[in-house]
């Protein structure tokens, strides 16, 4: 006797993508021309440093302002909303850092993003940990210490690590 009320359907559809590209009867594999991939790769890494710097500045500034808003807020519902906004901005900085290979900023935002998933704003230790993240991100941006190649990068990384360890259960 089957435990399933509905049948499981396995549907073999036509390969519409290939039919569109090659016609109904040609089923050979397609590839992109290598020069197009190389050009696309070049285009991707060819971003304007000024625009990136302005964008990072705006994102870090917004993050600091959202965080300060969140610390002052006492209303639970507002806190939840502002926390989501903080999470969104952390993600944007992470996206931008990955895009530009800002390895240190990637490290900080990845750490903050994961921490925010389980944060308890009633726990003072958690507040310290978020504050530490926001501080190192601000310092890293202001002093242009965005990658692990920068001389003070390890110092900032260890400062955050210490703050996390000292305030963890």
């Amino acid at each position, binding site marked *: 006797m089957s435990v399933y009320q509905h049948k*499981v359907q396995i549907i073999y559809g036509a390969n519409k993508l290939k039919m*569109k*590209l090659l016609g109904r009867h040609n089923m050979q594999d397609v590839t992109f021309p290598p020069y197009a991939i190389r050009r696309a790769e070049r285009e991707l890494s060819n971003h304007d440093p000024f625009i990136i710097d302005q964008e990072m500045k705006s994102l870090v500034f917004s993050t600091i302002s959202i965080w300060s808003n969140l610390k002052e807020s006492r209303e639970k519902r507002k806190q939840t909303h502002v926390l989501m906004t903080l999470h969104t901005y952390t993600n944007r900085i992470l996206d931008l850092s990955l895009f530009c290979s800002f390895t240190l900023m990637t490290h900080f935002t990845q750490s903050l993003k994961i921490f925010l998933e389980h944060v308890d704003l009633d726990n003072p230790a958690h507040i310290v940990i978020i504050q530490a993240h926001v501080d190192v991100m601000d310092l890293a941006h202001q002093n242009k210490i965005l990658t692990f190649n920068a001389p003070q990068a390890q110092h900032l990384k260890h400062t955050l690590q210490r703050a996390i360890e000292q305030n963890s259960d």
Partner: protein
Amino acid sequence: MVQFDKLNILIFEEYFLLSDALSKMLEILGMGRIYKATTRSDAQNTLYRGFKGSHISHFDFAIIDLAPPNNHGLDLLQWLRNHENKDLRYLPVILTTNDTREKVVLTGRDFGAHEILVKPYSAHNVSRRILTLINKPRPFIQSPDYKGPDRRRRAETFEGKDRRKLSINDIEIIDERLSA
């Protein structure tokens, strides 16, 4: 010469900077019309309108960002996989994420993404995922628990005890290849 410009793509990425970069990359790769949606509702409306036959005849695949923390990308994927329109339900989807954790990748797979692309984008990775959609299509599974491409990419024989709860009578195989 393959004319990739016949393919229409929808990008759902809330962050304009990445959406622009991805779109530019796809343009260079020779893709056809590219629509950039920055909200879930815009993506849904455009996908639906496209299939209703207005300015874009239809989209051939979509690149959807997970869009944390609200995970609007997963909502969009779920909307597609449960859509009454077959073309939307089967639409090939590349799900992008900045999160490399296994649970995130598995969630994307279980929501019915064809391919998962972990950021940062590179032309090499993006083109590889697109070619997998084109060259290695998988059957679509429709069950009470899951709707999406077959999650098994390889057909392998298994020697151990058969613990499957499904019997052959529970499975219906539908071949739409000849009627296409």
